[in-house]
């Protein structure tokens, strides 16, 4: 570049003011930065949502924490406290050995110590069972008696910080289970608070006997008193083989007996008597049907079985519609366990369980049939316990070393199937899509399928668009092609004001004013709508048949003056006719009084088997339509008005009518713009929140019935996010919903944009 001498004599009128240049450059820069930052911001939002969601799909992470010596003995039970700091082992004699796993070598570290129930010296223990959910041991003795022992951990928080866990045993006196003074071989106990039963298996000579007792608890003014035997039952008649496993659910409403030939008997206890309700074989299809392990999952309505070949199945209690009774059925199947199952520990906060044998330990999640973690550990596992807080795993090996592992699995329930697949939750008789994030009970399991929400979103959008599209498009065509300009000047701003109505106001109106009106007069609303459509066509046709003499009386663009009164009249007639129709056709009989009731709200569920709610998709579609119509209308109207006048006059000059011109020339030419209008309207409908929150019952449904409500993804986020614990599974699931919503709109917009570009290319006017 040669340096050029600036021309000395630039006339002043040619000089560009520096401010102009500077401003031009600044604005260029400013707009570039602005545009880029918008793109970056949108991407960041996406990344943020993604980061919230991704942890859901991570498996469990397990890392070793330390090992501890345990005095060598023959242990039958292993248990642990809530913090997994002071696990215990029970040996054959019934003694509890506690092992401190905190701060080994520290000043407060306790060496292993032993505690025993008070009566242990006087009896010979024949069996010990442990119920981890209640932290309760069950002792059976060689002379046919039993007792429970509560392992009561207590944490104190001393001044110097940290936590000190101490333990105390609280035992019941020994009670007699059966007249036979022979060793108790299997023992199970359930206590629902209202009733409690204990079942025990004994061997008298060569015969197996099963006895059960119901217990009562004396209630005194000072609190719960002693348990004592109320009634005894001899259930031996139900045994026709050797019982291997014995379980009583915590509701104390039955006894489950696993036989050594692979059959399971389910005896139901109604508070007074035992009845045999079901007999089933979990591994009916296998060569070796024998049951190796049979244990409850949290909630005691699911049984985890393993077969000798390592097969692992879950049977759950659900209502059999044929028998109208709750029976057990096969619900889940897991991959086989290579080494069978010799230890089992159920989680106390969710439906996970730790199972395995030999070197192999496997952490599985029942609901989703998924293996969260499985590993061959470098030692031979004899006992295992899953920390009650679902944050530890403890293993005892055959060398009496206790191995502590930290478990990090914050979202065990999360899996593709949870969010997008059908899942059979406990108590359900078939797999289904369900969303239910809160429930009444502690052991309630969240149902987190997004499918009902996605369908709800589509449903709301569908009904809104079905209502809004025809009206908005026809109104836009009419306004831009037929209406006199002086009217148009009035109509457009009014519509734009409509667009600025806050949706919370619309939702409020919909819920409190419109929903009752519509639900009271559904036939009338439908008839009035239908009447308007039919009348519009008929009147239009008749108008064309009228002699021109009469038609010329109305200037073009003022035809609506003749039209509107007819429409109003017809709509009114339809409305009134609706009540007549309801009286004659929508009649149901009141089952209690036998009276005939003419009410569509009752008739619809009766006739179709579908639900009817006051706040339903119909109302939402109607009101959301109002939110969407102005948007679609305004943009469509602009697109239509922007069609070059030359096309219009060209068509009219060739003898086309205004309607033909609108349909054949204007509409296709504006199609790209109309398409954008529809897509923007669709986007608004998909993301619309307040109207849906307010105008529906927010029930997640998977049906398209117009007379029930729905829950949309956006409404779901609005409703549940305030309640969702920060970074919890629900919290992240809500973000997953947001991500799905984001992707849905992104997909729709991308497809729309591609189509729009095509249309624009096709109908591009030459300049």
């Amino acid at each position, binding site marked *: 570049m040669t340096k050029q001498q600036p021309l000395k004599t630039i006339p002043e009128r040619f000089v560009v003011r520096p401010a102009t240049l500077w401003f031009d450059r600044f604005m260029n820069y400013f707009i570039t930065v602005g545009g880029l930052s918008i793109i970056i911001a949108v991407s960041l939002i996406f990344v943020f949502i993604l980061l919230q969601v991704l942890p859901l799909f991570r498996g469990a992470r397990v890392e070793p924490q330390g090992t501890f010596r345990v005095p060598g003995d023959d242990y039958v039970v292993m248990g642990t406290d809530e913090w997994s700091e002071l696990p215990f082992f029970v040996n054959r004699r019934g003694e509890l050995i506690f092992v401190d796993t905190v701060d080994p070598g520290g000043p407060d570290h306790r060496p292993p110590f032993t505690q025993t129930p008070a009566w242990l010296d006087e009896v010979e223990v024949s069996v010990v069972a442990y119920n981890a959910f209640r932290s309760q041991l069950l002792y059976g003795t060689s002379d046919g008696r039993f007792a429970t022992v509560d392992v009561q951990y207590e944490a104190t928080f001393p001044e110097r910080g940290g936590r000190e866990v101490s333990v105390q045993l609280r035992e019941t006196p020994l009670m007699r289970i059966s007249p036979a003074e022979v060793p108790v071989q299997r023992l199970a106990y359930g206590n629902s608070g209202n009733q409690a039963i204990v079942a025990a298996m004994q061997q008298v000579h060569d015969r197996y006997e099963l006895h059960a007792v119901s217990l009562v608890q004396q209630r005194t003014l000072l609190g719960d008193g002693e348990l004592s035997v109320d009634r005894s039952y001899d259930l031996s008649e139900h045994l026709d083989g050797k019982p291997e496993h014995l379980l009583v659910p915590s509701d104390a409403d039955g006894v489950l007996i696993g036989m050594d030939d692979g059959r399971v008997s389910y005896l139901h206890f109604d508070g007074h008597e035992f009845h045999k309700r079901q007999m089933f074989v979990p591994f009916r299809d296998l060569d070796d049907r024998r049951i190796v392990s049979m244990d409850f999952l949290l909630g005691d309505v699911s049984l985890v079985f393993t077969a000798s070949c390592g097969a692992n199945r879950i049977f759950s209690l659900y209502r059999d519609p044929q028998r109208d009774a709750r029976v057990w059925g096969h619900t889940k199947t897991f991959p086989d366990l290579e080494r069978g199952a010799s230890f089992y520990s159920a989680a106390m906060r969710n439906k996970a369980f730790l199972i395995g044998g030999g070197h192999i330990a496997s952490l599985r999640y029942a609901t989703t049939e998924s293996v969260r973690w499985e590993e061959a550990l470098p030692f031979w596992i004899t006992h295992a316990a899953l920390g009650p807080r679902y944050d530890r795993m403890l293993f005892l090996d055959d060398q009496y070393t206790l191995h502590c592992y930290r478990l990090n699995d914050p979202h065990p329930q999360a899996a593709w199937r949870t969010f997008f697949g059908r899942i059979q939750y406990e108590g359900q008789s078939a797999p289904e899509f369900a969303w239910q994030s809160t429930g009444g009970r502690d052991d309630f399991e969240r149902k987190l399928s997004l499918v009902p929400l996605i369908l709800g979103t589509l449903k709301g959008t569908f009904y809104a668009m079905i209502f809004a599209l025809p009206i908005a498009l026809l109104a836009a065509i009419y306004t831009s092609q037929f209406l006199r*300009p002086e009217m148009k000047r009035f109509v457009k701003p009014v519509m734009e004001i409509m667009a600025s109505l806050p949706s919370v106001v619309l939702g409020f109106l919909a819920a409190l004013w419109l929903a009752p009106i519509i639900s009271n007069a559904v036939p009338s609303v439908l008839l009035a709508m239908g009447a308007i459509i039919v009348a519009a066509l008929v009147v239009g046709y008749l108008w064309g048949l009228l002699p021109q003499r009469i038609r010329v009386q109305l200037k073009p663009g003022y035809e609506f003056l003749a039209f509107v009164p007819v429409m109003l009249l017809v709509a009114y007639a339809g409305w009134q006719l609706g009540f007549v129709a309801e009286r004659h056709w929508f009649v149901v009989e009141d089952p209690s009084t036998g009276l005939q009731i003419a009410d569509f709200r009752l008739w619809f569920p009766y006739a179709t088997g579908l639900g009817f709610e006051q706040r339903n998709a119909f109302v939402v579609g109607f009101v959301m339509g109002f939110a969407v119509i102005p948007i679609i209308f305004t943009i469509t109207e602009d697109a239509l008005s922007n069609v070059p006048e*030359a096309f219009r*006059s*060209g*068509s009219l000059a*060739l*003898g*086309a*009518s205004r309607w033909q011109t609108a349909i*054949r020339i204007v509409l296709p030419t504006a199609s790209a713009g109309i398409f954008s209008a529809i897509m923007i309207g669709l986007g608004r409908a998909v993301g619309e929140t307040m109207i849906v929150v307010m105008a529906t019952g927010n029930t997640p449904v998977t049906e398209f019935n117009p007379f029930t409500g729905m829950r949309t993804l956006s409404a779901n986020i609005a409703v549940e996010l305030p309640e969702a614990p920060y970074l919890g599974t629900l919290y992240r699931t809500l973000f997953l919903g947001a991500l799905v919503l984001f992707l849905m709109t992104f997909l729709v917009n991308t497809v729309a944009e591609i189509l729009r570009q095509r249309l624009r290319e096709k109908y591009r006017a030459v300049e």
Partner: protein
Amino acid sequence: MNDKHDGTVAATGGASEIQQRRVQVAQRRKKIDNDASAQYIQVCDHSFFYGSAQVLFDLNMDIPERQVTALIGPSGCGKSTLLRNFNRMNDLIDGISHRGDILIDGRSIYDPYLEVISLRKRIGMVFQKSNPFPKSIYENIVYSLRVAGRNRRAELDETVERSLRAAALWDEVKDRLRETAFSLSGGQMQRLCIARAIANRPEILLMDEPCSALDPVATGKIEDLIHQLKEEYTIIIVTHNMQQAARVSDRTAFLYMGRLIEYDDTETIFTNPTEEQTEAYVSGRFG
């Protein structure tokens, strides 16, 4: 479809006015029948207003059948307005009104019992700026048939070939009839618009500066075309090009400030005009 005539002849009112109009029309018809040199299009005392602005002042002119009539005059004198009145394209504009009448074949175009659509089918129009529709060449040409509900394939094909041949475009586009009309050159597009305008065999062809955007070669082609078309059509053409007017037209009307200054055989207008203004304009001294 006759909203815009609230002038003296306007008949938006009662039956008596309509009756009155009938009598008027009948009288005119008689006058025409009596006249030996019956003219095809008659403009009678025609005035035209955009809102309150008068653009045309009491025009009177008779346009013969199957001849080319040129409208010339300085910019803004009202040529296009007059031309657009023949097929009532001005109806689209807000707040217009008119006085006087225009008769085609003895019938008023403002007759309230006349469908504007049928009037427009009778009168083809070619616009100053070519305006093919965003459709294929084929569909552009058959548009007037399709809107009339005529969709028979054979008829459409026949029409396309005939119109394109008449517009001297057939050889250039016969292999690409399905391509979009926007793929044509400017001159081709204008000829396509001519072909489109004559597809439905109108009687009258209105052309508003059809060559203003074209180069001399294309202009030549269109002028040749006009020569051929006048065998069949009555053509009214607006042009700023004096040579063109002289070349293509049989009769020429000179408008100035909305008034018809002179209207005569083209020959006369260009060689021996009566009015001084005409002389000045055609010789290029003003305008």
